[in-house]
């Protein structure tokens, strides 16, 4: 009886499953296959050629550099924000949480634009930057700033709910027992949040390496100088060099697949750990 109560008739089940699979196949699987098929259209030699090209390599280097700056900074911010918000009470906390989410509501185009308004020639700080010989837009620092902006909330937003639900009792106990602040963080807080932290870093990194709209606005599209991988894809595509565009795009699609895999692994580990903890407490 319980199956009849909670399940649809077999024919309906089949129809729904087929609809869902068709939709996912059309919208997710087909594009994924298409990226790699187009990249390999002219064979492996042409594929390798497109990736070995100096412009592609310099774009790869710049993408790695941008992520290497933006991810650690936003990780540090995420930890500080989550510590302050989850472990202490203060007025205006909800407003602060909303402000941290702000970049999610801003179009990538606007995220890039604000740095042009700030540091561009007609910008608020443009004359100041020029007087000091700083080139902050249409340059690498501009790319980093725009990337910092769009990846700002990722780590904080994973950590805040996690640290809030863990409460403060364990940290307080450690404090009473004489642990220092750093010891409390490393021995008590970190073990509780490590999977969420890793997950946030993975998402932050994927967005940092893949961001297009914001960096497109601030880059100025200077080949070999301010081109990240996504911008290089755009240039190749607009030159009708489709095979090379898809070869470089396949690197980014591969990064996306690795991100999904890492995310699944993190979720699986966290679930396994929760299960073993529940098991341990039953044995107690």
């Amino acid at each position, binding site marked *: 009886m319980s199956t009849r109560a909670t399940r649809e008739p077999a024919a309906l089940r089949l129809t729904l499953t087929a609809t*869902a699979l068709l939709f996912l196949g059309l919208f997710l699987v087909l594009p994924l296959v298409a990226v790699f098929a187009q990249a390999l259209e002219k064979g492996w030699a042409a594929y390798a050629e497109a990736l070995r090209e100096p412009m592609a390599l310099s774009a790869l280097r710049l993408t790695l550099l941008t992520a290497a700056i933006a991810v650690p900074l936003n990780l540090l911010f995420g930890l500080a924000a989550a510590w302050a918000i989850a472990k202490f009470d203060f007025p205006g906390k909800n407003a602060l949480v909303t402000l941290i989410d702000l970049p999610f509501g801003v179009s990538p185009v606007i995220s890039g634009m604000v740095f042009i308004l700030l540091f561009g020639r007609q910008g608020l700080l443009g004359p100041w930057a020029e007087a000091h010989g700083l080139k902050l837009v249409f340059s690498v620092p501009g790319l980093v*700033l725009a990337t910092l902006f769009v990846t700002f909330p990722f780590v904080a937003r994973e950590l805040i709910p996690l640290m809030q639900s863990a409460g403060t009792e364990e940290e307080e106990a450690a404090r009473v027992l004489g642990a220092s602040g750093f010891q409390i963080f490393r021995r008590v807080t970190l073990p509780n949040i490590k999977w969420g932290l890793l997950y946030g870093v993975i998402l932050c990194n994927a967005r940092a390496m893949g961001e297009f709209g914001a960096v497109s606005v601030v880059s100025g599209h200077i080949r070999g100088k301010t081109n990240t991988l996504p911008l290089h894809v755009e240039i190749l595509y607009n030159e009708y060099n489709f095979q090379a565009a898809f070869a470089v795009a396949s690197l980014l699609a591969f990064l*996306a697949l690795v991100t999904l895999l890492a995310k699944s692994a993190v979720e699986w580990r966290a679930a396994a750990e929760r299960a073993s903890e529940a098991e341990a407490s039953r044995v107690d």
Partner: protein
Amino acid sequence: MNTSQQHGPETSVMLGLVKRVLPHHRGSVLPGFRLAMGFTLLYLALVILFPLSTLFWKSATLGPAGFWQAVSAPRVVASYKLTFGASLAAAAINGVFGLVVTWVLVRYRFPGRRLMDALVDFPFALPTAVAGITLTTLYAPNGWLGAPLERLGIKVAFTPLGITLALTFIGLPFVVRTLQPVLESLDPEVEEAAFSLGASRLQTVVRVVMPALVPAWITGFALAFARALGEYGSVVFIAGNMPMKTEITPLLIITKLEQYDYAGATAIAAVTLLASFVLLLSINRLQSWSARLGSAE
């Protein structure tokens, strides 16, 4: 989460002691508040708030009349209509199919289910430029899907339909990932109870399951819609970008910037920003509403 259940008896005693020694002083014995809070506020101000504030400074230089002229020109209004309409259509498609996908992923067992479940996040993880060129190639008149559709007389690439498809791709994970935890947490006993009281399966789904899903469903829809309004990378390749016809608002902002019309670009950006903030505020309200609904059950 009940922390005391996860520890040995000694820890429980310790935690109880701490609670009695430190009544209602939540977090006051923990160090690092000033440092963490100081860094958080400074970083937030430098990276987000100060850059965003330039938007208001720049739009103010236009004056009210200039501002109105910039945001209400026919080409700009056409881009609002297109962006709003295509985003709404894409969110609606995701509302329907996202619900079916979530239902099937949560309730049914079939080979490849976990793979499909992991793949739902693909649009989140895939850089938008890659999504853009891939969808364009698929739906171009000589593409895998574009060619057969062309024979049926349906043009997708470089039309509003293509824009809608790209926005559907981008929005799918929002609906599924918002609905999924809610559907997973529903207790099947409630459905069994409804059934044993004589309700048909359809009645049970419509009267018992759906009401519990509605807040998350609307939230997912609104999140997909908000994301679509500002989307650029996945749309710009497939759109064709013809002024008055297939030019989305974010692209128009870039066009104005490239023509050094910073004030005009800023005014349009301010309107876009206002629209997404209103949406996000409503989503926040929705989420607290659904949280209350969840805790009341």
